[in-house]
């Protein structure tokens, strides 16, 4: 053990003095922040910082680590040979159109096919009201830029998708979270939030909701709740933005009808091929009431001129020539086995006092840790033990969520998922022991808005 050492004066050795003097020439002094534009950036970028939590995710893609952190779909079951042939044929026969600029709204054939896809969840939409986007993430961006002035309020589930919170922050929106139970958003909390925001003189622009297998919580909003949420929003004149990337990945039952299926006028519906086909094409869409759609198309033209035309042609060919519904069934069987492995692993390895959701679809489980544990603080311990997850704080705009973690079961195999939960169990046991040793108080402490993993984290 080190003993105290006083700050004594130093007797330099002669060689070091000699060497020092060699470089003590008069030199121009540089006073720098290493970023000459530091005074120039827009206010909306000021919160963007390098984060130690996000940096820890860089180990997640290493094979030694079981990553339960990312949201990458497993696309290894796709018929790559068939898709390859179709793409070759597409280029040979329609290449000059597929590789040309296209419509800002997106190509008409795919917009028609998208209406067919949406009908599986009870939606009757018209191709004219569909705007194609670069993944549904860009639809979220276009909707936000269309509606939000700095300081406007967006209501979102507690917890909500980290990527949406990032977009909302980029447009300087204020996010107010609305409490959920295991049936979805609590209607009273929704009404209360709308009224209290208005009482403060602020504008509520829309409710952002992921009714199917919410990212991160996995919660499925019941049909009854959907009706109630739609009714409240209609009566209170609050637009609903319904984000539905996981709806067709319902593992145990038929999909629940979308909110858009019974409220065409007050809902902007966002869809995506990222989970039902493949995310690399970056094709998603927004189905919006006519007036909103007009604005989205103009916004799309200024953002990208037109969404990726080649990707639209490929997906259109895939939908036309491949049994895509059966492909979704194949995906569901694969994800069901992984979800079940996750449930088994959690039941076997989580310490007492841990609870978790039981998702009926989608990619994610939301874990609530025993009182006093902080998921962000124990992430380094998990990384040392070769397992990764996303701390719950990433999914709240207000610093809450420290007792939670999001685990994903989409990418690792069932065996790896079981191993991951085993490692996580060890990490939690060790952390619990050290907490009880130090007699730590159980007050959860808030964090700054935490970053989630990048899209290429497994």
């Amino acid at each position, binding site marked *: 053990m080190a003993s105290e050492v006083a*700050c004594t004066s130093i007797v330099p050795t002669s060689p070091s003095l000699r060497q020092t003097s060699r470089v003590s020439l008069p030199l121009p002094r540089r006073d720098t922040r290493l970023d000459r534009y530091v005074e120039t950036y827009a206010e909306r970028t000021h919160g963007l910082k390098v984060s130690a939590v996000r940096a820890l995710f860089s180990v997640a893609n290493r094979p030694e680590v079981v990553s339960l952190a990312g949201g990458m779909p497993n696309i290894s079951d796709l018929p790559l040979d068939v898709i390859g042939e179709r793409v070759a044929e597409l280029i040979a026969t329609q290449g000059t159109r597929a590789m040309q600029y296209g419509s800002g709204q997106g190509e008409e054939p795919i917009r028609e096919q998208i209406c067919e896809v949406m009908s599986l969840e009870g939606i009757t939409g018209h191709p004219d009201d569909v705007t194609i986007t670069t993944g549904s993430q860009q639809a979220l961006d276009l909707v936000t830029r269309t509606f939000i002035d700095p300081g406007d309020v967006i209501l979102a589930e507690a917890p909500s998708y980290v990527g949406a919170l990032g977009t909302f922050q980029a447009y300087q929106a204020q996010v107010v979270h609305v409490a959920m139970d295991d049936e979805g958003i609590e209607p009273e909390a929704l009404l209360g939030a709308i009224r209290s925001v208005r009482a403060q003189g602020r504008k509520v622009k829309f409710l952002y909701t992921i009714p199917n297998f919410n990212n991160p919580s996995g919660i499925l909003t019941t049909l009854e709740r959907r009706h109630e949420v739609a009714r409240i929003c209609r009566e209170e004149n609050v637009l609903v933005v319904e984000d539905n990337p996981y709806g067709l990945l319902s593992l145990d039952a038929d999909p629940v009808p979308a909110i858009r299926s019974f409220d065409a006028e007050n809902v902007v519906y966002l869809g995506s091929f990222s989970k039902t086909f493949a995310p690399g094409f970056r094709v998603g869409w927004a189905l919006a009431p006519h007036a909103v759609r007009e604005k989205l198309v103009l916004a799309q033209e200024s953002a990208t001129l037109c969404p990726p035309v080649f990707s639209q042609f490929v997906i259109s060919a895939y939908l036309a020539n491949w049994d895509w519904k059966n492909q979704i069934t194949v995906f569901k069987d694969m994800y069901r086995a992984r979800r079940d492995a996750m449930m088994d692993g959690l039941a076997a390895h989580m310490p007492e006092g841990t609870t978790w959701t039981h998702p009926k679809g989608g990619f994610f489980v939301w874990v609530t840790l025993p009182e006093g544990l902080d998921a962000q603080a124990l992430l380094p311990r998990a990384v040392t033990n070769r397992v990764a997850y996303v701390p719950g704080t990433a999914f709240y705009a207000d610093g809450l969520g420290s007792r939670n973690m999001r685990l994903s079961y989409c990418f690792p195999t069932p065996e790896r998922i079981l191993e991951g939960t085993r490692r996580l169990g060890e990490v939690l046991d060790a952390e619990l022991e*050290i907490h009880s040793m*130090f007699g730590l108080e159980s007050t959860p402490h808030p964090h700054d808005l935490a970053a989630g993993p990048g899209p290429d984290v497994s």
Partner: protein
Amino acid sequence: MSGEAVVVLSGGLSHERDVSLRSGRRASQALRDAGHEVHELDVSSSLLAQLIELGKPVVVPLLHGGAGEDGALRQALELADVPYVGSVSAACRVAFDKAIATPRVAAAGWATPAQIALPDDMFRELGAPTLVRALGAHLGFPMMVKPARSGSALGCAKVDRIEDLPAAMVQAYAYGGVAVIERFVSGREVAVAVIDTGDGPVALPAVEIIPDSGVYDYSARYTAGATRFIAPAGLEPDVAARCAELAIGAHTSLGLRDLSRTDLIIVTDGTPVFLEANVAPGLTETSTMPLAMEAADLELGTVLSQLVAQARERGTGA
């Protein structure tokens, strides 16, 4: 030796993987610009085989934290007879562990903060409340709590009140089994790089670090624009000389080789106090070592190239 093939080793599985990859990219570019054929490799089970296949070129290890900095990987390179730039494994083992390096530097006569090092199982065996109280009584507040073996300020916290000490200890133990608790040293924060291209260790001009947030934590280190750097630091000549002497003293007393960076605090009377020495100094876009080289009118690529030539001449690592 221009044109010689080199391997830049970065990444690894430590908490600082991301920083290491940034250092690796920058060093690789600098070496390429200096005419080298550069292979960028990560640590994996095939690493040694890859090095043998490449004909055992000189390795530039830019792994931060964990096995990359604690000597483990360098030991393996020594075992495989692969020449590398930087300190030998035995010295890294000492330098990387603050619980060992700080007393070593203190024993050589340099000013260091009063420090206590404790493994987590000591708290288990002796009871945390008593030890926590004793720490408070011995060091006083504010104090710094740090993981003994970690970099980039990960897991470090300044603690002002005894009530906050347990949480800070738990956070430090999340990074490893031993924590050091030091009396907080207040003053100007300075980093001094040392390089030795054959004529003995030379201190580069000190770089002063002034983070906007007041704390030079992970975000302040790697967010461009979040920290002000002054190179060379605006120090009185005698203070600058003392900082250089301390950096060379730390480099020498820890038995370091080729390059190192010492972080220190200059207290009110001008005395530099040693905080830590780094055997794999960061070479990222926001690291102080490249700034120090620039202030000394040196080019990163040229310096690395000289160190590579020296390592090649030296032959195997040990």
